[in-house]
């Protein structure tokens, strides 16, 4: 089981769509054709393989790429339409590039101040101090940018983007250029952004793990087109999208901490369809938590398993079946009292146990990752 990462109050589901984006462009070997309504709150992940057009879409939204005929409005303000194009520097956005892209001729503090100084003081909502604190970069301020580690650089870049008090924050795979331990260093800060900032965040990523951790909504892009879009949990549980997630297919469960059991070092998290035990985490009772259950960690039984070592066993109804990319393997979508769960089992077991839509089964969950 994974270590618990951070506490969080999961924000309410976003209501009305306030970012409208329509872009169409064609290069020799790549075309982008999207028409999107994006949520005005929370984190929307633009997810897809490399070459799916997610970074291009983000650059179009930032105005770094100028697409004739594109249309974009944010919070009712028109950023681009047939007659107008607001240049990047007049758009109230924050942007974090894949590489930190700090100004090497300026100190860390000067980098942070560069954008903030250019925002009229009446429009400043996030102070410099707040962004410094949010990213934990106080001790780095007087350093030269060359003296920072990769993770520190990216944290400074994120703080620099927040310090301009953006109305929309765009993150282009901010973790992609970092190794695994640096990623773990930054993820908690990104989760804090999610919790603390009351602005929409668009997060480009090709990592299912990052998406499951951070996003509230997912836009799945493939070869420049939107193939799926919607609420994170519903989208991750769609069996027609298995190709996009591959081996990382899995469901996300959200619940609240119901009990800490110190003697067995376990925490009980209650969700809509039941309760699940994970390793003891540090968050307070009642905290909202997000869990991830990989399809490969879920097995099925037709009778209630007795005397099993597996703690988390749920009664479930089979909703849907789909072949996995791996021959001989089948994904089974389950309904656990309203919460979707996905299992990956062998085709042979599927046949022998007569698992088909509508069937009643018991799902045994071998491992639960506490995302936050």
């Amino acid at each position, binding site marked *: 089981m994974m270590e618990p990462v951070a506490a969080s109050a999961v924000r309410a589901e976003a209501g009305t769509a306030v970012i409208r984006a329509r872009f169409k462009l064609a290069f020799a070997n790549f075309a982008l054709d999207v028409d999107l309504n994006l949520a005005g709150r929370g984190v929307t992940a633009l997810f897809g393989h490399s070459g799916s057009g997610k970074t291009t879409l983000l650059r179009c939204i930032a105005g770094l790429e100028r697409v004739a005929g594109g249309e974009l409005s944010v919070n009712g303000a028109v950023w681009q339409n047939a007659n107008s194009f607001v240049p990047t*520097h007049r758009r109230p956005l924050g942007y974090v*590039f894949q*590489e930190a892209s*700090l*100004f090497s001729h300026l100190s860390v503090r000067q980098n942070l101040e560069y954008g903030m100084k250019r925002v009229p003081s009446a429009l400043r909502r996030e102070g410099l101090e707040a962004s410094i604190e949010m990213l934990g970069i106080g001790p780095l301020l007087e350093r030269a940018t060359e003296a920072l580690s990769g993770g520190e650089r990216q944290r400074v870049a994120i703080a620099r983007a927040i310090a301009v008090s953006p109305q929309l924050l765009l993150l282009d795979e901010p973790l992609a250029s970092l190794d695994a331990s640096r990623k773990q260093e930054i993820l908690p800060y990104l989760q804090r952004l999610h919790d603390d900032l009351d602005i929409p965040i668009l997060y480009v990523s090709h990592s299912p793990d990052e998406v499951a951790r951070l996003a509230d909504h997912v836009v799945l892009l493939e070869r420049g087109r939107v193939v799926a879009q919607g609420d994170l949990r519903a989208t991750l549980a769609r069996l027609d999208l298995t190709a996009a997630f591959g081996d990382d297919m899995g469901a996300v469960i959200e619940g609240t901490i119901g009990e800490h059991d110190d003697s067995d070092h376990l925490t009980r998290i209650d969700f809509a369809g039941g309760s699940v035990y994970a390793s003891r985490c540090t968050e307070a009772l009642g905290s909202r938590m997000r869990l991830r259950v990989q399809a490969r960690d879920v097995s099925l039984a037709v009778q209630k398993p007795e005397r099993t070592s597996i703690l988390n066993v749920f009664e479930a109804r089979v909703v849907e079946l789909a072949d996995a990319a791996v021959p001989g393997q089948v994904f089974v979508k389950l309904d656990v009292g309203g919460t979707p769960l996905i299992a990956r089992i062998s085709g042979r077991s599927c046949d022998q146990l007569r698992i088909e839509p509508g069937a009643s089964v018991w799902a045994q969950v071998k491992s639960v990752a506490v995302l936050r």
Partner: protein
Amino acid sequence: MGLTDADLGAIWLTLRLATLVTVLLLLIGTPIAWWLSRTRSWLKGPIGAVVALPLVLPPTVLGFYLLVAMGPQGFVGHVTQSLGFGLLPFSFWGLVVASVFYSMPFVVQPLQNAFEAIGERPLEAAATLRAGPWDRFFTVALPLAKPGFITASVLGFAHTVGEFGVVLMIGGNIPDKTRVVSVQIYDHVEALEYPQAHWLSGIMLIFSFLVLLSLYVFNPNRRKA
């Protein structure tokens, strides 16, 4: 010291000329280099080639065309005369104009390389941080291109000090007006005044060496490499 008043006059004139030309070239060359580093226009090739011409053209050829252009029948001559400046050939300002053309590639090319080395990313980052185009140029591009400006200034200055052919074609040999050090050395040798020629040549040699040495010492990029 074996320097005559005429020698000192030539040195002073040369320093004045090179300083003025370097300043003018930084002012003219920066926008040209910036444009060359950023444009996708088909004109990039032709303009880049014109700027680089003095690298391969014999100075006499360049000097000849400039002489004709700035002469009484030339286009530039017409303009300067109608503006009341008179004719440029055989004047200090004629030398300045000719030197600007002659030393142009030594300023434009290091600047262009420096601007190209910056890449788009820092400028895009600045744009997302509310900096407009001029703001980005002055607060990001110029500071990041600083090593290029050092190289360009040193090379532009040194190359102007070292010019000879163009000066002879345009300026001739008028003491304190157009007789620069390289011409003065030529005159000494013509007159078989070898000791004087030695003095001036030695000074030029040491100057050139120090200039090139300074490029390595003061240029942070080269020091790293």
